[in-house]
């Protein structure tokens, strides 16, 4: 394990050096290597929020259901501050590893009488099958555990505030609604049409409060590298003829 990792690091270092040598330009390697990134998801209804990381302002007037970023951060323990008109609304620390990505979400708790909170959803840069989308749904709304119905079927079951579920789905437009776990009504949200983007991670956050009619979704789409080869037109899986007793070497037909 360790030797494998070490080998990878050495390879990376050599590659980086090679690229720098070829490019012959002025760049800062520490910056180039830093792909530790966060996005801000604003899930608090009726607020325009300013956002600071470690006390430094990164975004102003982020509206409800908007996604801001990416913001490069240094790995380690960071602090996020959400404020409105100079007054701090939320402030929390979070930790992030080198090369990791995270969505930092300001949102309502499951019960609308509770205080807003910050939830950090960490994720990796995964490969997505060609022609498909990775769909990640997260529940950050003022509703109890819920089912997410997609095209009238429960595709994401019993998901509570602060949780998420992921699936790979074909590129299409889906009819999505949110209902209480195991029920079909009351409908907390929807149905709405959601078109997923292929070759991408589609992170969808259910935000708001149905009692105040502020339910909405924040959608964060991250283009990913794809995996998988194209659709075949031909499958050739018999070159001997033995299976039908017409083979060159085996006269024995094992199956008939």
């Amino acid at each position, binding site marked *: 394990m360790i030797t494998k990792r070490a080998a990878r690091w050495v390879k990376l270092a050599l590659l980086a050096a090679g690229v720098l040598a070829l490019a012959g330009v002025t760049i800062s390697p520490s910056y180039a290597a830093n792909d530790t990134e966060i996005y801000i998801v604003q899930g608090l209804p009726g607020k325009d929020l300013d956002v600071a990381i470690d006390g430094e302002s990164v975004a102003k007037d982020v509206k409800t259901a908007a996604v801001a970023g990416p913001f490069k951060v240094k790995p380690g323990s960071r602090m996020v501050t959400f404020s409105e008109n100079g007054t701090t609304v939320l402030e929390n620390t979070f930790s992030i590893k080198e090369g990791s990505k995270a969505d930092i979400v300001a949102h309502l708790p499951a019960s609308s009488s509770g205080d807003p909170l910050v939830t950090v959803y960490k994720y990796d840069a995964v490969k997505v099958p060609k022609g498909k989308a990775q769909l990640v749904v997260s529940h950050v709304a003022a509703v109890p555990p819920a089912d997410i119905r997609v095209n009238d079927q429960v595709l994401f079951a019993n998901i509570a505030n602060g949780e998420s579920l992921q699936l*790979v789905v074909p590129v299409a437009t889906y009819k999505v609604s949110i209902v209480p776990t195991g029920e079909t009504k009351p409908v907390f949200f929807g149905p709405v049409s959601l078109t997923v983007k292929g070759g991408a991670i589609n992170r969808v956050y259910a935000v708001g409060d149905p009692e105040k009619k502020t339910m909405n979704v924040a959608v964060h789409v991250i283009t990913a590298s794809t995996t998988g080869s194209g659709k075949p037109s031909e499958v050739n899986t018999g070159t001997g003829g033995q299976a039908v007793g017409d083979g060159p070497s085996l006269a024995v037909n094992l199956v008939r």
Partner: protein
Amino acid sequence: MTTRAIQLQSRSRRRPKRHRPGLRRSIVSVVCLLTALSGCTAQAAPENSSSRGDAPAGQSSVAPARQGRPAASQRIEFIPERLTLPGHATAGVLPAVTVDGVLRVPEDVEHVGWWDGSARVGEPFGSTVIAGHVDSATEGIGFFARLLKIKAGDTITLRADSHQLKYRVTSVRTVAKKALATDSQAFRQTGPHRLVLITCTGNFHRDRGGYDSNLVVVGKPLGVAR
């Protein structure tokens, strides 16, 4: 990256990473040395030289944010590694790639190939496509010669690590080779999830070195992957 199962991924994500600052520092110096030699004016800035410390002052009194986590109902999706036909006959499954329109199945007739553009086992939509030799001129009878005997209602199991999903055979059809991709919808990646097994059948044409038809076995998942 080999995505085995999302549950496994999320488990490994929680595992703390081991830090080896010594190694990393030495690599940084190698990079610095090489960039210096190459004559470019890169400013090598090791991680710890940033103006921001690892834990900024004033942070200690601030509560940590909540961590988002997967719900217990997270569906398991995996790339198949073993296929079991009725009678406990089991073959290894290897990824198979399409090259110039032809699916390259494993040469070894005791292995079968999972088309790497098809659905992983347990996905809610699309076909999981597995093709294998009925026979080969050099290796004789193949594992999928057994498909010539399979019938509707039979059970097929796909496994990887500790995960599995069983399918019930719903149809067995012979399709002219040229019509496989068009008429049979064997490769369809929309619609409900299903298993599609493909081999060769029909008349063997020695002069052309192959069969004129494909055998297409379709199965419907029995529940979700575990």
